[in-house]
Protein backbone atom coordinates (compact mmCIF):
# COMPACT_ATOMS: atom_id res chain seq x y z
CA UNK A 1 0.00 0.00 0.00
CA UNK A 2 2.70 2.43 1.03
CA UNK A 3 4.52 1.43 -2.11
CA UNK A 4 1.46 1.88 -4.27
CA UNK A 5 0.70 5.46 -3.33
CA UNK A 6 3.51 7.35 -5.09
CA UNK A 7 2.78 5.64 -8.39
CA UNK A 8 -0.40 7.59 -8.82
CA UNK A 9 1.38 10.81 -7.91
CA UNK A 10 2.33 12.29 -11.25
CA UNK A 11 4.92 14.45 -9.54
CA UNK A 12 7.17 11.51 -8.80
CA UNK A 13 10.50 11.84 -10.58
CA UNK A 14 10.96 9.57 -13.54
CA UNK A 15 13.91 7.43 -12.41
CA UNK A 16 12.23 6.75 -9.10
CA UNK A 17 9.10 5.68 -10.89
CA UNK A 18 11.08 3.23 -12.95
CA UNK A 19 12.70 1.70 -9.94
CA UNK A 20 9.36 1.54 -8.26
CA UNK A 21 7.93 -0.22 -11.24
CA UNK A 22 10.65 -2.79 -10.97
CA UNK A 23 10.06 -3.28 -7.26
CA UNK A 24 6.37 -3.66 -7.89
CA UNK A 25 6.93 -6.11 -10.67
CA UNK A 26 9.34 -8.07 -8.50
CA UNK A 27 6.70 -8.17 -5.81
CA UNK A 28 4.15 -9.46 -8.27
CA UNK A 29 6.62 -12.06 -9.47
CA UNK A 30 7.38 -13.18 -5.94
CA UNK A 31 3.66 -13.34 -5.20
CA UNK A 32 3.18 -15.44 -8.34
CA UNK A 33 5.99 -17.84 -7.52
CA UNK A 34 4.69 -18.26 -4.00
CA UNK A 35 1.23 -19.11 -5.27
CA UNK A 36 2.40 -21.34 -8.06
CA UNK A 37 4.65 -23.32 -5.73
CA UNK A 38 2.05 -25.67 -4.20
CA UNK A 39 0.64 -27.00 -7.46
CA UNK A 40 4.06 -27.22 -9.12
CA UNK A 41 5.63 -29.07 -6.20
CA UNK A 42 2.57 -31.30 -5.93
CA UNK A 43 2.57 -32.28 -9.58
CA UNK A 44 6.35 -32.73 -9.67
CA UNK A 45 6.13 -35.23 -6.81
CA UNK A 46 2.90 -37.03 -7.67
CA UNK A 47 2.79 -36.73 -11.45
CA UNK A 48 6.16 -36.03 -13.06
CA UNK A 49 8.35 -38.06 -10.73
CA UNK A 50 6.13 -41.19 -10.88
CA UNK A 51 6.14 -41.10 -14.68
CA UNK A 52 9.90 -40.59 -14.62
CA UNK A 53 10.35 -43.60 -12.35
CA UNK A 54 8.10 -45.60 -14.67
CA UNK A 55 10.47 -44.68 -17.49
CA UNK A 56 13.49 -45.73 -15.43
CA UNK A 57 11.88 -49.01 -14.47
CA UNK A 58 11.07 -49.76 -18.08
CA UNK A 59 14.77 -49.47 -18.94
CA UNK A 60 16.09 -51.47 -16.02
CA UNK A 61 17.34 -55.02 -16.42
CA UNK A 62 16.87 -57.62 -13.73
CA UNK A 63 20.50 -57.25 -12.69
CA UNK A 64 20.07 -53.48 -12.40
CA UNK A 65 21.75 -52.55 -15.69
CA UNK A 66 20.27 -50.81 -18.71
CA UNK A 67 18.16 -52.78 -21.18
CA UNK A 68 15.63 -52.38 -23.96
CA UNK A 69 14.51 -55.92 -23.36
CA UNK A 70 11.09 -54.89 -21.97
CA UNK A 71 10.34 -52.86 -25.07
CA UNK A 72 11.38 -55.74 -27.29
CA UNK A 73 8.96 -57.89 -25.29
CA UNK A 74 6.17 -55.41 -25.80
CA UNK A 75 6.54 -55.67 -29.57
CA UNK A 76 6.56 -59.45 -29.67
CA UNK A 77 3.91 -62.13 -29.93
CA UNK A 78 0.73 -61.68 -27.91
CA UNK A 79 1.80 -58.26 -26.63
CA UNK A 80 2.25 -56.92 -30.13
CA UNK A 81 -1.19 -58.22 -31.00
CA UNK A 82 -2.65 -56.36 -28.04
CA UNK A 83 -0.90 -53.16 -29.14
CA UNK A 84 -2.34 -53.55 -32.63
CA UNK A 85 -5.78 -54.33 -31.19
CA UNK A 86 -5.56 -51.13 -29.16
CA UNK A 87 -4.74 -49.10 -32.25
CA UNK A 88 -7.51 -50.81 -34.25
CA UNK A 89 -10.23 -50.32 -31.64
CA UNK A 90 -9.12 -46.73 -31.02
CA UNK A 91 -9.30 -46.03 -34.76
CA UNK A 92 -12.73 -47.65 -35.14
CA UNK A 93 -14.09 -45.86 -32.11
CA UNK A 94 -12.78 -42.42 -32.90
CA UNK A 95 -13.99 -42.73 -36.49
CA UNK A 96 -17.48 -43.72 -35.35
CA UNK A 97 -17.55 -41.04 -32.65
CA UNK A 98 -16.50 -38.53 -35.28
CA UNK A 99 -19.20 -39.48 -37.79
CA UNK A 100 -21.98 -39.74 -35.22
CA UNK A 101 -20.75 -36.63 -33.43
CA UNK A 102 -20.70 -34.73 -36.71
CA UNK A 103 -24.30 -35.65 -37.44
CA UNK A 104 -25.49 -34.72 -33.95
CA UNK A 105 -23.48 -31.51 -33.68
CA UNK A 106 -24.63 -30.24 -37.05
CA UNK A 107 -28.22 -31.06 -36.17
CA UNK A 108 -27.95 -29.26 -32.83
CA UNK A 109 -26.24 -26.25 -34.36
CA UNK A 110 -29.34 -25.72 -36.49
CA UNK A 111 -31.87 -26.03 -33.66
CA UNK A 112 -33.53 -23.11 -31.93
CA UNK A 113 -31.59 -21.99 -28.81
CA UNK A 114 -33.98 -23.60 -26.33
CA UNK A 115 -33.93 -26.98 -28.06
CA UNK A 116 -30.21 -26.75 -28.66
CA UNK A 117 -29.70 -26.11 -24.94
CA UNK A 118 -31.78 -29.14 -24.02
CA UNK A 119 -30.01 -31.34 -26.54
CA UNK A 120 -26.63 -30.22 -25.24
CA UNK A 121 -27.78 -31.09 -21.75
CA UNK A 122 -28.41 -34.66 -22.93
CA UNK A 123 -24.89 -34.67 -24.37
CA UNK A 124 -23.15 -33.14 -21.36
CA UNK A 125 -24.90 -34.76 -18.39
CA UNK A 126 -23.91 -38.33 -19.34
CA UNK A 127 -20.34 -37.09 -19.69
CA UNK A 128 -20.31 -36.40 -15.96
CA UNK A 129 -21.85 -39.72 -15.03
CA UNK A 130 -19.31 -42.40 -14.26
CA UNK A 131 -18.20 -44.23 -17.42
CA UNK A 132 -18.33 -47.42 -15.40
CA UNK A 133 -22.03 -46.95 -14.74
CA UNK A 134 -22.75 -46.10 -18.37
CA UNK A 135 -20.86 -49.20 -19.46
CA UNK A 136 -23.02 -51.26 -17.14
CA UNK A 137 -26.06 -49.68 -18.76
CA UNK A 138 -24.80 -50.86 -22.14
CA UNK A 139 -24.29 -54.37 -20.79
CA UNK A 140 -27.94 -54.44 -19.75
CA UNK A 141 -29.04 -52.98 -23.10
CA UNK A 142 -26.98 -55.23 -25.36
CA UNK A 143 -27.41 -58.60 -23.65
CA UNK A 144 -28.96 -61.59 -25.42
CA UNK A 145 -32.28 -60.67 -23.80
CA UNK A 146 -31.52 -56.99 -23.64
CA UNK A 147 -33.67 -54.15 -24.90
CA UNK A 148 -31.89 -53.90 -28.24
CA UNK A 149 -32.15 -57.56 -29.12
CA UNK A 150 -35.75 -57.80 -27.90
CA UNK A 151 -36.67 -54.83 -30.03
CA UNK A 152 -34.94 -56.23 -33.10
CA UNK A 153 -36.58 -59.62 -32.59
CA UNK A 154 -39.98 -58.00 -32.17
CA UNK A 155 -39.43 -56.14 -35.43
CA UNK A 156 -38.48 -59.46 -37.10
CA UNK A 157 -35.13 -58.00 -38.03
CA UNK A 158 -33.30 -60.63 -40.11
CA UNK A 159 -30.68 -62.41 -38.06
CA UNK A 160 -31.82 -61.10 -34.67
CA UNK A 161 -30.97 -61.68 -31.87
CA UNK A 162 -27.34 -60.71 -32.37
CA UNK A 163 -24.31 -61.34 -30.22
CA UNK A 164 -23.59 -57.75 -29.15
CA UNK A 165 -21.59 -58.32 -25.99
CA UNK A 166 -18.09 -59.65 -25.35
CA UNK A 167 -17.01 -58.94 -28.88
CA UNK A 168 -15.75 -56.02 -30.89
CA UNK A 169 -19.21 -54.63 -31.65
CA UNK A 170 -19.91 -54.28 -27.94
CA UNK A 171 -16.59 -52.62 -27.20
CA UNK A 172 -16.91 -50.16 -30.08
CA UNK A 173 -20.50 -49.23 -29.15
CA UNK A 174 -19.66 -48.76 -25.49
CA UNK A 175 -16.46 -46.81 -26.08
CA UNK A 176 -18.05 -44.63 -28.76
CA UNK A 177 -20.74 -43.67 -26.27
CA UNK A 178 -18.02 -42.55 -23.86
CA UNK A 179 -16.14 -40.55 -26.51
CA UNK A 180 -19.20 -39.02 -28.16
CA UNK A 181 -19.64 -36.05 -25.79
CA UNK A 182 -16.08 -34.95 -26.57
CA UNK A 183 -16.52 -34.99 -30.33
CA UNK A 184 -19.97 -33.39 -30.18
CA UNK A 185 -18.75 -30.54 -27.98
CA UNK A 186 -15.66 -29.86 -30.08
CA UNK A 187 -17.55 -29.99 -33.37
CA UNK A 188 -20.47 -27.99 -32.03
CA UNK A 189 -18.13 -25.19 -30.94
CA UNK A 190 -16.68 -25.02 -34.46
CA UNK A 191 -20.06 -25.27 -36.20
CA UNK A 192 -21.56 -22.48 -34.10
CA UNK A 193 -18.78 -20.24 -35.33
CA UNK A 194 -19.51 -20.86 -38.99
CA UNK A 195 -21.06 -18.00 -40.88
CA UNK A 196 -24.02 -19.72 -42.47
CA UNK A 197 -24.32 -16.94 -45.02
CA UNK A 198 -21.32 -18.51 -46.72
CA UNK A 199 -23.46 -21.55 -47.46
CA UNK A 200 -26.27 -19.37 -48.74
CA UNK A 201 -23.78 -17.48 -50.89
CA UNK A 202 -22.54 -20.74 -52.38
CA UNK A 203 -26.13 -21.74 -53.09
CA UNK A 204 -26.75 -18.34 -54.63
CA UNK A 205 -23.90 -18.95 -57.03
CA UNK A 206 -25.50 -22.16 -58.15
CA UNK A 207 -23.79 -24.80 -56.03
CA UNK A 208 -25.85 -27.88 -55.25
CA UNK A 209 -26.33 -29.20 -51.73
CA UNK A 210 -23.67 -31.86 -52.01
CA UNK A 211 -21.20 -29.42 -53.47
CA UNK A 212 -21.88 -26.93 -50.69
CA UNK A 213 -21.41 -29.62 -48.10
CA UNK A 214 -18.23 -30.92 -49.68
CA UNK A 215 -16.59 -27.68 -50.80
CA UNK A 216 -17.76 -25.18 -48.17
CA UNK A 217 -19.11 -26.81 -45.01
CA UNK A 218 -16.60 -29.62 -44.52
CA UNK A 219 -13.54 -27.39 -45.11
CA UNK A 220 -14.93 -24.93 -42.58
CA UNK A 221 -15.44 -27.67 -39.99
CA UNK A 222 -12.16 -29.43 -40.83
CA UNK A 223 -10.10 -28.01 -37.92
CA UNK A 224 -12.73 -29.27 -35.48
CA UNK A 225 -12.83 -32.68 -37.17
CA UNK A 226 -9.07 -33.05 -36.88
CA UNK A 227 -9.11 -31.95 -33.24
CA UNK A 228 -11.99 -34.21 -32.26
CA UNK A 229 -10.67 -37.20 -34.18
CA UNK A 230 -7.14 -37.11 -32.83
CA UNK A 231 -8.27 -36.32 -29.30
CA UNK A 232 -10.76 -39.15 -29.09
CA UNK A 233 -8.16 -41.49 -30.58
CA UNK A 234 -5.68 -40.50 -27.87
CA UNK A 235 -8.28 -40.87 -25.13
CA UNK A 236 -9.16 -44.35 -26.43
CA UNK A 237 -5.57 -45.58 -26.43
CA UNK A 238 -5.34 -45.77 -22.65
CA UNK A 239 -8.98 -46.60 -22.04
CA UNK A 240 -9.68 -49.54 -19.83
CA UNK A 241 -13.19 -49.86 -18.43
CA UNK A 242 -15.40 -50.53 -21.41
CA UNK A 243 -13.08 -52.89 -23.29
CA UNK A 244 -12.43 -54.81 -20.06
CA UNK A 245 -16.14 -55.22 -19.29
CA UNK A 246 -17.67 -55.48 -22.76
CA UNK A 247 -14.94 -57.12 -24.76
CA UNK A 248 -13.87 -60.70 -25.24
CA UNK A 249 -10.37 -62.06 -25.27
CA UNK A 250 -9.70 -60.62 -28.70
CA UNK A 251 -10.47 -57.10 -27.49
CA UNK A 252 -7.83 -56.93 -24.75
CA UNK A 253 -6.29 -53.46 -24.85
CA UNK A 254 -2.98 -52.19 -23.54
CA UNK A 255 -4.46 -50.79 -20.33
CA UNK A 256 -5.87 -54.23 -19.47
CA UNK A 257 -2.50 -55.80 -20.16
CA UNK A 258 -0.77 -53.30 -17.86
CA UNK A 259 -3.34 -53.97 -15.17
CA UNK A 260 -2.82 -57.70 -15.48
CA UNK A 261 0.97 -57.47 -15.44
CA UNK A 262 0.97 -55.33 -12.32
CA UNK A 263 -1.83 -56.96 -10.36
CA UNK A 264 -1.51 -60.61 -11.31
CA UNK A 265 2.01 -61.22 -12.63
CA UNK A 266 3.99 -58.69 -10.60
CA UNK A 267 5.71 -57.81 -13.83
CA UNK A 268 6.34 -54.13 -13.18
CA UNK A 269 9.11 -53.59 -15.74
CA UNK A 270 7.04 -54.92 -18.60
CA UNK A 271 4.03 -52.88 -17.46
CA UNK A 272 6.22 -49.78 -17.28
CA UNK A 273 7.46 -50.28 -20.84
CA UNK A 274 3.86 -50.60 -22.05
CA UNK A 275 2.92 -47.45 -20.12
CA UNK A 276 5.77 -45.51 -21.72
CA UNK A 277 4.72 -46.75 -25.16
CA UNK A 278 1.19 -45.46 -24.48
CA UNK A 279 2.67 -42.16 -23.37
CA UNK A 280 4.77 -41.85 -26.51
CA UNK A 281 1.75 -42.65 -28.69
CA UNK A 282 -0.16 -39.91 -26.88
CA UNK A 283 2.67 -37.43 -27.44
CA UNK A 284 2.78 -38.43 -31.10
CA UNK A 285 -0.93 -37.68 -31.36
CA UNK A 286 -0.57 -34.29 -29.70
CA UNK A 287 2.39 -33.49 -31.95
CA UNK A 288 0.37 -34.45 -34.99
CA UNK A 289 -2.41 -32.16 -33.82
CA UNK A 290 0.02 -29.31 -33.49
CA UNK A 291 1.61 -29.92 -36.88
CA UNK A 292 -1.79 -30.09 -38.57
CA UNK A 293 -2.80 -26.90 -36.80
CA UNK A 294 0.20 -24.94 -38.01
CA UNK A 295 -0.14 -26.49 -41.47
CA UNK A 296 -3.76 -25.38 -41.54
CA UNK A 297 -2.82 -21.88 -40.47
CA UNK A 298 -0.10 -21.67 -43.11
CA UNK A 299 -2.60 -22.83 -45.71
CA UNK A 300 -5.12 -20.21 -44.64
CA UNK A 301 -2.48 -17.47 -44.74
CA UNK A 302 -1.50 -18.49 -48.25
CA UNK A 303 -5.16 -18.44 -49.20
CA UNK A 304 -5.56 -14.95 -47.82
CA UNK A 305 -2.43 -13.70 -49.55
CA UNK A 306 -3.42 -14.90 -52.99
Amino acid sequence: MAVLAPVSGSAAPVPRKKRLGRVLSERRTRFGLLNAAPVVVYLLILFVYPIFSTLMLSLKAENGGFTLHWYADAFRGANLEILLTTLRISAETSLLALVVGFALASAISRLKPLWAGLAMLVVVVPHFISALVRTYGWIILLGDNGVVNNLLTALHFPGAPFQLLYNEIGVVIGTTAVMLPYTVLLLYAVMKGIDRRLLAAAAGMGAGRITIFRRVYVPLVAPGLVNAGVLSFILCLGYYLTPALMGGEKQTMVASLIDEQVMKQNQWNGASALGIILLLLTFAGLLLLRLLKSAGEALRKRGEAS
Partner: protein
Amino acid sequence: MIELRSTLAGRITLAVLATLILLFLAMPIIVIVVTSFGKDAFGNFPPSSWTLGWYKQLFADGSKWPAALSLSALVASLTTVFSLVLGMTAATALVRSELPLRSAVYGLVLAPLVIPQVVIALGLFLLFEPAAMLGSPIAIALGHTVLAAPIGVMILMATLKGIDERLEDAAASMGAGRLTVWRRVTLPLAAPGLVAAGIFSFITSFDEFFISQFLSSVDTVTLPVKVFNVLQYNVDPSVTAVSAILIAVAVVALALVAVVRKLGGSGKQDGLLLTEPTVGLTAGSETSS
Protein backbone atom coordinates in the same frame (compact mmCIF):
# COMPACT_ATOMS: atom_id res chain seq x y z
CA MET B 1 -30.58 -12.83 -42.34
CA ILE B 2 -29.85 -14.91 -45.36
CA GLU B 3 -30.05 -18.61 -44.67
CA LEU B 4 -29.65 -21.68 -46.73
CA ARG B 5 -33.18 -22.96 -46.95
CA SER B 6 -33.58 -26.53 -45.81
CA THR B 7 -36.08 -28.92 -47.24
CA LEU B 8 -38.79 -30.45 -45.06
CA ALA B 9 -37.45 -33.96 -45.72
CA GLY B 10 -34.00 -32.83 -44.75
CA ARG B 11 -35.25 -31.33 -41.52
CA ILE B 12 -37.19 -34.45 -40.59
CA THR B 13 -34.22 -36.72 -41.31
CA LEU B 14 -32.04 -34.50 -39.18
CA ALA B 15 -34.51 -34.44 -36.30
CA VAL B 16 -34.94 -38.21 -36.33
CA LEU B 17 -31.20 -38.74 -36.51
CA ALA B 18 -30.53 -36.32 -33.66
CA THR B 19 -33.20 -37.95 -31.49
CA LEU B 20 -31.72 -41.39 -32.10
CA ILE B 21 -28.23 -40.23 -31.16
CA LEU B 22 -29.48 -38.47 -28.05
CA LEU B 23 -31.28 -41.69 -27.09
CA PHE B 24 -28.00 -43.51 -27.67
CA LEU B 25 -26.45 -41.24 -25.04
CA ALA B 26 -29.32 -41.33 -22.58
CA MET B 27 -30.46 -44.96 -22.80
CA PRO B 28 -27.72 -46.60 -20.70
CA ILE B 29 -28.50 -44.20 -17.89
CA ILE B 30 -32.27 -44.53 -18.12
CA VAL B 31 -32.09 -48.30 -18.25
CA ILE B 32 -30.07 -48.46 -15.02
CA VAL B 33 -32.33 -46.17 -13.07
CA VAL B 34 -35.44 -48.06 -14.20
CA THR B 35 -33.94 -51.53 -13.70
CA SER B 36 -32.79 -50.65 -10.18
CA PHE B 37 -36.46 -50.45 -9.17
CA GLY B 38 -37.43 -53.64 -10.97
CA LYS B 39 -38.08 -56.98 -9.29
CA ASP B 40 -36.25 -59.09 -11.84
CA ALA B 41 -32.73 -57.88 -11.35
CA PHE B 42 -31.10 -58.25 -14.74
CA GLY B 43 -33.91 -59.40 -16.89
CA ASN B 44 -36.68 -57.68 -18.67
CA PHE B 45 -36.90 -54.06 -19.53
CA PRO B 46 -39.14 -52.43 -18.57
CA PRO B 47 -39.50 -54.59 -15.46
CA SER B 48 -42.80 -56.37 -14.88
CA SER B 49 -43.05 -55.43 -11.20
CA TRP B 50 -41.41 -52.92 -8.91
CA THR B 51 -39.45 -53.08 -5.69
CA LEU B 52 -37.15 -51.09 -3.44
CA GLY B 53 -35.51 -54.33 -2.34
CA TRP B 54 -32.15 -53.77 -4.02
CA TYR B 55 -31.71 -50.49 -2.21
CA LYS B 56 -32.66 -52.06 1.11
CA GLN B 57 -30.22 -54.87 0.48
CA LEU B 58 -27.38 -52.37 0.11
CA PHE B 59 -27.67 -51.37 3.72
CA ALA B 60 -28.63 -54.74 5.14
CA ASP B 61 -26.36 -56.38 7.73
CA GLY B 62 -23.26 -57.94 6.28
CA SER B 63 -23.39 -55.82 3.16
CA LYS B 64 -19.98 -54.58 2.04
CA TRP B 65 -21.39 -51.58 0.17
CA PRO B 66 -21.60 -49.07 3.05
CA ALA B 67 -17.86 -49.45 3.72
CA ALA B 68 -17.04 -48.80 0.07
CA LEU B 69 -19.45 -45.87 -0.01
CA SER B 70 -17.96 -44.22 3.06
CA LEU B 71 -14.40 -44.77 1.81
CA SER B 72 -15.33 -43.13 -1.49
CA ALA B 73 -16.97 -40.23 0.32
CA LEU B 74 -13.92 -39.76 2.55
CA VAL B 75 -11.49 -39.92 -0.37
CA ALA B 76 -13.62 -37.53 -2.43
CA SER B 77 -13.81 -35.04 0.46
CA LEU B 78 -10.04 -35.10 0.96
CA THR B 79 -9.54 -34.70 -2.79
CA THR B 80 -11.89 -31.72 -2.79
CA VAL B 81 -9.89 -29.97 -0.08
CA PHE B 82 -6.53 -30.66 -1.74
CA SER B 83 -7.85 -29.63 -5.13
CA LEU B 84 -9.34 -26.35 -3.85
CA VAL B 85 -6.15 -25.33 -2.07
CA LEU B 86 -3.99 -26.15 -5.08
CA GLY B 87 -6.55 -24.74 -7.48
CA MET B 88 -6.99 -21.40 -5.75
CA THR B 89 -3.27 -20.74 -5.30
CA ALA B 90 -2.42 -21.89 -8.81
CA ALA B 91 -5.24 -19.86 -10.37
CA THR B 92 -4.10 -16.78 -8.44
CA ALA B 93 -0.56 -17.29 -9.68
CA LEU B 94 -1.64 -17.81 -13.29
CA VAL B 95 -4.21 -15.00 -13.47
CA ARG B 96 -3.10 -12.39 -10.93
CA SER B 97 0.66 -12.23 -11.09
CA GLU B 98 3.70 -11.98 -13.28
CA LEU B 99 4.85 -15.54 -13.37
CA PRO B 100 8.11 -16.53 -14.99
CA LEU B 101 7.69 -19.64 -17.16
CA ARG B 102 3.94 -19.11 -17.02
CA SER B 103 3.20 -21.32 -20.02
CA ALA B 104 5.33 -24.12 -18.61
CA VAL B 105 3.40 -24.02 -15.34
CA TYR B 106 0.12 -23.92 -17.26
CA GLY B 107 1.18 -26.86 -19.40
CA LEU B 108 2.21 -28.85 -16.35
CA VAL B 109 -1.15 -28.19 -14.70
CA LEU B 110 -3.11 -29.34 -17.75
CA ALA B 111 -0.93 -32.31 -18.61
CA PRO B 112 -2.70 -34.83 -16.33
CA LEU B 113 -5.86 -34.36 -18.39
CA VAL B 114 -4.34 -35.71 -21.60
CA ILE B 115 -1.86 -38.25 -20.27
CA PRO B 116 -3.44 -41.75 -20.29
CA GLN B 117 -4.82 -42.44 -16.83
CA VAL B 118 -3.30 -45.88 -16.77
CA VAL B 119 0.14 -44.27 -16.98
CA ILE B 120 -0.64 -41.92 -14.09
CA ALA B 121 -2.06 -44.81 -12.08
CA LEU B 122 0.95 -47.02 -12.75
CA GLY B 123 3.34 -44.25 -11.71
CA LEU B 124 1.41 -43.63 -8.50
CA PHE B 125 1.42 -47.34 -7.77
CA LEU B 126 5.20 -47.42 -8.14
CA LEU B 127 5.39 -44.42 -5.78
CA PHE B 128 3.07 -45.69 -3.06
CA GLU B 129 3.78 -49.41 -3.15
CA PRO B 130 7.33 -49.16 -1.68
CA ALA B 131 5.96 -46.72 0.92
CA ALA B 132 3.46 -49.39 1.98
CA MET B 133 0.66 -46.88 1.44
CA LEU B 134 -1.58 -48.99 -0.79
CA GLY B 135 -5.13 -48.91 0.49
CA SER B 136 -4.60 -45.73 2.46
CA PRO B 137 -7.39 -43.21 1.85
CA ILE B 138 -4.80 -40.41 1.90
CA ALA B 139 -2.78 -42.06 -0.87
CA ILE B 140 -5.88 -42.56 -3.02
CA ALA B 141 -6.95 -38.95 -2.42
CA LEU B 142 -3.45 -37.68 -3.27
CA GLY B 143 -3.69 -39.68 -6.48
CA HIS B 144 -7.16 -38.40 -7.36
CA THR B 145 -5.99 -34.85 -6.79
CA VAL B 146 -3.64 -35.21 -9.76
CA LEU B 147 -6.78 -35.45 -11.91
CA ALA B 148 -9.01 -33.11 -9.90
CA ALA B 149 -6.57 -30.23 -9.40
CA PRO B 150 -6.31 -29.35 -13.13
CA ILE B 151 -10.10 -29.09 -13.30
CA GLY B 152 -10.11 -26.95 -10.17
CA VAL B 153 -7.42 -24.68 -11.61
CA MET B 154 -9.30 -24.25 -14.90
CA ILE B 155 -12.59 -23.36 -13.22
CA LEU B 156 -10.96 -21.00 -10.72
CA MET B 157 -8.89 -19.32 -13.43
CA ALA B 158 -12.10 -18.55 -15.29
CA THR B 159 -13.62 -17.32 -12.01
CA LEU B 160 -10.71 -15.00 -11.20
CA LYS B 161 -10.65 -13.66 -14.75
CA GLY B 162 -14.32 -12.79 -14.30
CA ILE B 163 -13.67 -10.77 -11.12
CA ASP B 164 -12.86 -7.13 -11.74
CA GLU B 165 -9.32 -6.69 -10.47
CA ARG B 166 -10.07 -3.03 -9.70
CA LEU B 167 -12.32 -4.15 -6.84
CA GLU B 168 -9.31 -5.75 -5.19
CA ASP B 169 -7.18 -2.70 -5.98
CA ALA B 170 -9.84 -0.42 -4.53
CA ALA B 171 -9.91 -2.37 -1.28
CA ALA B 172 -6.13 -2.29 -1.16
CA SER B 173 -6.02 1.44 -1.76
CA MET B 174 -8.40 1.93 1.14
CA GLY B 175 -5.89 0.31 3.39
CA ALA B 176 -6.86 -3.34 3.41
CA GLY B 177 -3.92 -5.70 3.70
CA ARG B 178 -3.36 -8.44 1.18
CA LEU B 179 -4.94 -11.07 3.41
CA THR B 180 -7.95 -8.89 4.18
CA VAL B 181 -8.48 -8.18 0.50
CA TRP B 182 -8.32 -11.86 -0.23
CA ARG B 183 -10.66 -12.81 2.60
CA ARG B 184 -13.18 -9.96 2.31
CA VAL B 185 -13.21 -9.25 -1.43
CA THR B 186 -11.73 -12.01 -3.57
CA LEU B 187 -13.09 -14.97 -1.65
CA PRO B 188 -16.75 -13.86 -1.53
CA LEU B 189 -16.65 -12.94 -5.21
CA ALA B 190 -15.03 -16.25 -6.08
CA ALA B 191 -17.45 -18.28 -3.95
CA PRO B 192 -19.58 -19.62 -6.84
CA GLY B 193 -16.44 -20.68 -8.67
CA LEU B 194 -15.06 -22.32 -5.55
CA VAL B 195 -18.28 -24.26 -5.06
CA ALA B 196 -18.23 -25.37 -8.70
CA ALA B 197 -14.55 -26.35 -8.50
CA GLY B 198 -15.24 -28.22 -5.26
CA ILE B 199 -18.17 -30.13 -6.70
CA PHE B 200 -16.33 -31.11 -9.87
CA SER B 201 -13.33 -32.21 -7.81
CA PHE B 202 -15.64 -34.27 -5.63
CA ILE B 203 -17.32 -36.13 -8.48
CA THR B 204 -14.03 -36.58 -10.31
CA SER B 205 -12.77 -38.45 -7.29
CA PHE B 206 -16.05 -40.16 -6.43
CA ASP B 207 -16.29 -41.70 -9.92
CA GLU B 208 -12.60 -42.31 -10.49
CA PHE B 209 -11.76 -45.92 -11.16
CA PHE B 210 -8.28 -46.59 -12.47
CA ILE B 211 -6.14 -44.84 -9.86
CA SER B 212 -8.30 -46.33 -7.09
CA GLN B 213 -7.92 -49.74 -8.66
CA PHE B 214 -4.13 -49.49 -8.54
CA LEU B 215 -3.95 -47.95 -5.08
CA SER B 216 -6.57 -50.12 -3.38
CA SER B 217 -5.77 -53.00 -1.11
CA VAL B 218 -7.91 -56.06 -0.56
CA ASP B 219 -9.95 -54.56 2.27
CA THR B 220 -10.04 -50.93 1.19
CA VAL B 221 -11.96 -50.66 -2.03
CA THR B 222 -13.69 -47.56 -3.33
CA LEU B 223 -17.22 -47.73 -4.67
CA PRO B 224 -16.31 -47.75 -8.40
CA VAL B 225 -13.70 -50.46 -7.86
CA LYS B 226 -16.25 -52.57 -6.01
CA VAL B 227 -18.81 -52.04 -8.76
CA PHE B 228 -16.22 -53.07 -11.34
CA ASN B 229 -15.27 -56.20 -9.41
CA VAL B 230 -18.90 -57.19 -9.05
CA LEU B 231 -19.53 -56.65 -12.76
CA GLN B 232 -16.46 -58.62 -13.73
CA TYR B 233 -16.47 -61.51 -11.31
CA ASN B 234 -19.57 -62.16 -9.27
CA VAL B 235 -23.14 -61.26 -9.81
CA ASP B 236 -24.81 -59.10 -7.18
CA PRO B 237 -28.09 -57.56 -8.33
CA SER B 238 -27.76 -54.65 -5.90
CA VAL B 239 -24.99 -53.32 -8.16
CA THR B 240 -27.78 -51.78 -10.22
CA ALA B 241 -28.97 -49.83 -7.20
CA VAL B 242 -25.41 -48.67 -6.49
CA SER B 243 -25.09 -47.53 -10.10
CA ALA B 244 -28.34 -45.62 -9.81
CA ILE B 245 -27.00 -43.93 -6.67
CA LEU B 246 -23.83 -42.95 -8.54
CA ILE B 247 -26.01 -41.46 -11.28
CA ALA B 248 -28.05 -39.56 -8.69
CA VAL B 249 -24.92 -38.15 -7.04
CA ALA B 250 -23.61 -36.87 -10.39
CA VAL B 251 -26.95 -35.35 -11.39
CA VAL B 252 -27.43 -33.65 -8.01
CA ALA B 253 -23.87 -32.31 -8.21
CA LEU B 254 -24.47 -30.86 -11.67
CA ALA B 255 -27.77 -29.34 -10.56
CA LEU B 256 -26.00 -27.74 -7.58
CA VAL B 257 -23.39 -26.23 -9.86
CA ALA B 258 -26.12 -24.84 -12.08
CA VAL B 259 -27.97 -23.34 -9.11
CA VAL B 260 -24.85 -21.78 -7.63
CA ARG B 261 -23.88 -20.33 -10.98
CA LYS B 262 -27.31 -18.83 -11.36
CA LEU B 263 -27.29 -17.36 -7.84
CA GLY B 264 -23.78 -16.08 -8.38
CA GLY B 265 -25.02 -14.47 -11.58
CA SER B 266 -21.86 -15.20 -13.48
CA GLY B 267 -23.49 -13.82 -16.60
CA LYS B 268 -22.90 -16.85 -18.77
CA GLN B 269 -25.94 -18.75 -17.74
CA ASP B 270 -26.65 -20.32 -21.07
CA GLY B 271 -23.30 -22.00 -20.78
CA LEU B 272 -23.97 -23.23 -17.26
CA LEU B 273 -22.55 -26.67 -17.68
CA LEU B 274 -20.98 -26.33 -21.04
CA THR B 275 -17.80 -24.69 -19.90
CA GLU B 276 -16.53 -27.57 -17.83
CA PRO B 277 -16.51 -30.47 -20.23
CA THR B 278 -14.51 -28.39 -22.64
CA VAL B 279 -11.95 -28.25 -19.86
CA GLY B 280 -10.73 -31.69 -20.68
CA LEU B 281 -10.90 -30.95 -24.35
CA THR B 282 -9.07 -27.68 -24.60
CA ALA B 283 -6.34 -29.31 -22.61
CA GLY B 284 -5.30 -31.17 -25.71
CA SER B 285 -4.89 -28.13 -27.84
CA GLU B 286 -3.60 -25.92 -25.04
CA THR B 287 -0.70 -28.09 -24.08
CA SER B 288 0.25 -28.71 -27.63
CA SER B 289 0.16 -25.06 -28.62
